[in-house]
């Protein structure tokens, strides 16, 4: 009898996600809340679950379960066109992440640390790429790139086409905002007394930044970078508008394939992209929590 109580408590803790019926009568409120939660998760993750499952089916159309196979993954890796697009996508994501992380961090530092003319203006504009419809952003980038390419043609006589470079520039354009937001958040928590303490102990501004400020905001910077990388990986509209002939990116390539036919191969690619995205997001969360 004496030991029964703690065991009971342990059992309660283990099932803490389940509504606690023992501490009171089962109420309609609790029941509907639980039901609501189940439905929400079903709505959100049901389709993704189906996608992942049907990437392993033998069925050629990927809509029925007829047995387990890894054939679609093998086929996917053998598809040069698809792999080329994946390579392009990784390349674009890598370059745009590095550039936007550097500029986004610098921008965040400037915004948090200094009062300068036009700061309020920059503050307002900085979030624009996050809130405006992506299609508007894509159209404006397309129009702007057309203008610039035309300008180059007129001045130098060279005909420059849209390519991965224009895609990279487009991705940088929206990634900087996201990086800035994340880094600014980590700067807000940063205690500036730490910098004063470093100065007080004989460090100059440069030493203070690299030994104190940078290590302290590094989780924020990495979080911002991972976010930028993920956003670049699965960006569709801007990639579609800004890529040139023969420079296809993975999301665009997937879309082109889907237009013809939905095959389990598509499911396989999507599952892989999903896995990469989830990994990156989880990683960024972990890195930011570590502080």
């Amino acid at each position, binding site marked *: 009898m004496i030991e029964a109580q703690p065991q009971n408590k342990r059992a309660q803790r283990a099932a803490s996600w389940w509504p606690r019926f023992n501490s009171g009568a089962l109420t309609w409120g609790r029941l509907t809340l639980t039901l609501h939660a189940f439905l929400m998760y079903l709505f959100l993750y049901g389709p993704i679950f189906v996608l992942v499952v049907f990437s392993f089916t033998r069925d050629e159309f990927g809509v029925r379960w007829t047995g387990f196979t890894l054939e679609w993954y093998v086929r996917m890796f053998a598809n040069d066109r698809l792999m080329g697009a994946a390579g392009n996508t990784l390349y674009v994501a890598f370059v745009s992440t590095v550039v936007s992380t550097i500029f986004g961090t610098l921008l965040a530092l400037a915004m948090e640390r200094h009062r300068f003319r036009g700061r309020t203006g920059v503050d307002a504009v900085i979030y624009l790429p996050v809130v405006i419809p992506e299609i508007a952003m894509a159209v404006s980038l397309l129009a702007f790139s057309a203008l610039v390419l035309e300008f180059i043609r007129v001045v130098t006589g060279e005909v420059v086409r849209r390519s991965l470079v224009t895609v990279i520039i487009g991705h940088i354009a929206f990634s900087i905002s996201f990086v800035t937001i994340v880094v600014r958040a980590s700067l807000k928590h940063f*205690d500036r*007394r*730490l910098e*004063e*303490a*470093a*100065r*007080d*102990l*004989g*460090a*100059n501004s440069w*030493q203070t930044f690299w*030994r*104190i400020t940078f*290590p*302290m905001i590094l989780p924020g910077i990495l979080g911002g970078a991972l976010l930028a990388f993920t956003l670049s990986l699965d960006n569709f509209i801007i990639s579609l508008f800004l890529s040139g002939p023969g420079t296809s990116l993975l999301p665009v390539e997937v879309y082109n394939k889907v237009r013809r036919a939905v095959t389990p191969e598509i499911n396989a690619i999507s599952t892989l992209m999903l896995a990469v995205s989830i990994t990156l997001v989880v990683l960024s969360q972990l890195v930011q929590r570590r502080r």
Partner: protein
Amino acid sequence: MHKGYAIELANVVKRFGEVAAVDHVTLQIHDGEFFSLLGPSGCGKTTTLRMIAGFEYPSGGELMIHGRPMATVPPHHRPVNTVFQSYALFPHMTVAQNVAFGLKMKRVPRAELGARVQAALDMVRLAGFAERYPRQMSGGQQQRVALARALVNQPEVLLLDEPLGALDQKLRKEMQLELKSLQHRVGITFIFVTHDQEEALTMSDRIAVMNQGKVLQVGTPTEIYERPTCKFVADFIGETNFIEGTVVEQSDEYATIQTPDGLQLRGYTPRPVNLGEAATLSLRPEKARLVLPSHARPEDAFTMPVHVEMITYIGSDTRITVRLNERRTLDVWEQNTLSTLDRNAYWQPGEAAVLVCPPANALVLTE
């Protein structure tokens, strides 16, 4: 070794926009002194300290450290170190790395560095904590790490910005004594900022009382408590009763004021007063006595007929509130020198009494 003062401020002003946070402050702080800047929040004490540290540059005036002009020298080139209110320990470094930071910046050789870090940790009794991170330590331990991190650099002056503010009462008392003895051992000039008058009285060799950016009085704890030169200092340090009146008689170091009720009260004047001037009599509760009306003697400086209103027994003292007239009550503290349970040994509410005080125990102050 050094000639003159450790720190010298001459007419130092610091303005933030229109507001003068520090308003023509002049201070001379001796070598090896434990010097406190005391005042309510917003009085300019922290700004003064930050100017000595180099985090703020004065808007005007001269600031010297051991005779060298320092007003616009950046913090990392000053021979001073700071212990911050929030400790400001580097959270991503171990205790040893925190303490070593200043020596590393000065490129102290590795062998010497290790020994000095160890000695500094020994000094604050944290020898076994070198590999811990600040977050794994209690507030009091973090406080001592901050001390070691500053003292390991052997600064000419140590600046302490309310370092005990975040500690609980008991630990605070311990740290006060520990800081004081530490200062004796290392012989470094300490400049200590606090808003806690008891703390300042306990630890300091000298205290500067500040209010609204100005230094009102500089003196030893005894001078500040016993001979405040203005009403603010008398009010801020310890407790006191104020009685307003006009100066009607003035001689040498004493003056008599007359209250609107016609009472004449005589007291010591730390600063000369003029006849006819408005003045306040400051009377500390422990420096007055209550006697039965029949016991009042003419040699007392003044006698005030009062009625006992409230009695609070707090063990060592009995705190008695007496009523002088409809508008004013006064506090008198009597030490409980007698050990008895007899209620009659104490005053009773409603009892008539006479408050007596020798003139040297009361002060006549102007604004």
